[in-house]
């Protein structure tokens, strides 16, 4: 008896689930059919593409310039310290090496602890 009751409940659930999906579909279909969309002409899209490509080119030039300036600055500092104050140069090398080893060790320990 209980099994039959469960079966009926399941059937009702399936049916109401299906009805809900159907109602969602009907609602979405009305948006698809009746919400107005104005599609611009081809020329508008072409202009948009040209404009976007120009923006991308400008951004690329800007990024490359910034990268080159920073790289040149870092290189100048490294070369300056190497030839004029070698103690600072080697101290920096040591510090960077310790930092890298420390960073990866902590990450490894964290990963091991998590697993």
């Amino acid at each position, binding site marked *: 008896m209980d099994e039959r009751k469960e079966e009926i409940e399941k059937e009702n659930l399936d049916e109401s*689930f299906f009805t809900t999906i159907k109602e969602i579909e009907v609602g979405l279909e009305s948006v698809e059919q009746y*919400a107005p969309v104005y599609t611009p002409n081809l020329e508008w899209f072409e202009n948009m593409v040209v404009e976007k490509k120009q923006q991308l080119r400008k951004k690329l030039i800007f990024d490359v310039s910034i990268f080159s300036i920073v790289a040149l600055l870092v290189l100048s500092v490294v070369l300056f310290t190497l030839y004029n104050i070698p103690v600072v140069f080697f101290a920096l090398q040591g510090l960077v090496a310790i930092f890298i080893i420390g960073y990866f060790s902590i990450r490894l320990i964290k990963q091991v602890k998590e697993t």
Partner: protein
Amino acid sequence: MEEGELIRSAKSGDKSAFAMLFHQNYSFLVKYLMKVTMNPDTAEELAQETMARCIEKIHLYQGKSKFSSWLISIATNLYIDQQRKKKREKNWQQQEEIYRKLKWQLESRNEEWTDALSALGKLADDVRIPIILKHYYGYSYDEIGEMMKLSSGTIKSRVHNGILAVRKELRLNG
């Protein structure tokens, strides 16, 4: 010109090919975004952002899925990122305000704004989107998972729970 050919030309930098691809898919994209955002203005803004992103990333399009599916995927992720940045509270009053314009547009064409749409509008974006993709556009759980960068199991449970929530809401209203 066929879609494949247009994509090849667009990849080689042909602006007319890009324009034709966008022209062909614009309405589909905006209507998808209207269903997702429930806001015609946001849908149009996002469609333009999607096209801009598409120009930038066209070299990554492998042609495994249809171009329209790829656009949907970009648009979905843009919308989710945008909402995450806003971090606004999902307030019912606010949501009603958001879809008021769409409601008005439908009603002005003698089309009824259904309770199901209201109920769908109340759901969180990451629940509403998989329901729309699954039950309106017919994508599989795996495809939706790929689009939203989630496992198909997660998508399946979100769709299921979302429909249960809509059903509950409809019963409350009915």
